[in-house]
């Protein structure tokens, strides 16, 4: 597996800037993609792996994603808010350093495996004194991640109705970690749950509140788009990492060290990284 030093984009959603009362980040109003690592930019922050992470611009989320798709950029990060009317804060977090150190992953082959894994996650969170609304949200978001991997990406299951009698080979993997109030959940699948286009499309469809529950929507999508909305709603950071065009790891990080209602209005970090293509 190789990692390329290729164009990447970091941008701040305009709504996020407005919600946070502006910031010390200058706004450019147009898309700019860094083409070479040694381009000098007036505002830069170092990521922990030494690559440059530059806050380049603010833009409408939709415009930025369209521009990124047009330029075939394979790595981007957006700092965004899910609710423009909310006060939000800006966090510049280190860029993902390629494949993350492995969490201890358990295999999910069947509905029983999934149920047991979700129950273990719930127990672990409760025993760690994570507040109940966070527990509910994280378990829900994890369930939706698993469903994405099992039903939307599996070559056979994606063609039919969602049911509970699946037996996956190869399995989907689930891991989680608690670290001083930060809860990380990772779901890995070999079925290509997300690629750049589908992840961007999911983000663009999401308006923070609505899913598509019409019967036609249910049939076409195999489920409800509300699943992705719950993943976003119940996390502080959501990252998608695709390796060799197939293996997908979705990672949700939730900061539970705050009142739940404040968490709901806080900003999000969204990452997409594709390796080895």
């Amino acid at each position, binding site marked *: 597996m190789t990692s390329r030093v290729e164009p990447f984009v970091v941008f701040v959603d305009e709504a996020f800037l407005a919600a946070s009362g502006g910031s010390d980040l200058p706004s450019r109003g147009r898309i700019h993609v860094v083409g070479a690592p040694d381009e000098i930019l007036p505002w830069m922050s170092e990521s922990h792996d030494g690559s440059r992470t530059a806050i380049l611009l603010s833009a409408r989320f939709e415009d930025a994603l369209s521009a990124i798709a047009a330029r075939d950029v394979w790595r981007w990060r957006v700092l965004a808010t899910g*609710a423009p*009317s909310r006060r939000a804060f800006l966090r510049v977090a280190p860029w993902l350093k390629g494949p993350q150190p492995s969490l201890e992953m358990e295999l999910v082959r069947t*509905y029983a495996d999934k*149920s047991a894994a*979700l129950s273990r996650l719930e127990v672990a969170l409760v025993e760690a004194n994570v*507040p*109940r*609304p966070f527990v*509910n949200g994280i*378990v*829900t978001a994890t*369930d*939706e991640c698993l*469903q994405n991997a099992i*039903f939307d990406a599996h070559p056979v299951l994606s063609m039919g109705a*969602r*049911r*509970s009698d699946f037996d996956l080979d190869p399995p989907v993997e689930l891991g989680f970690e608690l670290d001083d109030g930060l809860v990380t959940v990772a779901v890995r699948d070999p079925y290509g749950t997300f690629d750049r286009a589908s992840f961007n499309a999911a983000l663009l469809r999401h308006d923070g*509140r*609505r*899913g598509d*529950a*019409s*019967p036609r929507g*249910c049939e076409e999508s195999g*489920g*409800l788009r*509300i*699943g992705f*909305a*719950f993943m976003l709603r119940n996390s502080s950071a959501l990252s998608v990492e695709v390796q060799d065009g197939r293996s997908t790891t979705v990672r949700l990080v939730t900061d539970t060290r705050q*009142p*739940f*209602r404040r968490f*709901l*209005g806080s900003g999000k970090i969204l990452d997409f990284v594709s390796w080895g293509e």
Partner: protein
Amino acid sequence: MLSFEATQTGYRLLGEVDEEADFSQLPEGALELDLSGIRRVNSTGIRNWIRWKERLAQPPVLRDVPSILVLELSMLPDLSRGTKIRSIRAPYAHPVTGERIEVLFEGETLAWIRDHRRVPPQLAPDGATQLEFDEDENNYFEFLHNGAEVAGR
């Protein structure tokens, strides 16, 4: 797994509304469903629910709807439209201790919230401390404006 326990007025749902939830086990006809026993919900379970609801001549009346399901009702107009709601749980938190308290809101209170578009103040058990609403106030009660009806007592 989702199971159904007969009550005096209908059925109480217990467990998870997920891909294994089979609502066809419920009889047809007017039903009151107590949802207080629902522990977890996912989008596939909600899809199963919607498909079942679409086939009913009369939608059920829902009581003691937990917050995890209130969110779904508010996010999905097709789920809330035509649904009759007798009571829901609304989360408040103590501003100092952070303790979460789920308050039961019934017919008149739900109608008030619908008409005033804000949550009613709630006091802690000490009778003096104002609790804080512990959800997104703008979205939590959206089901009241998405076509759900408030059912009387």
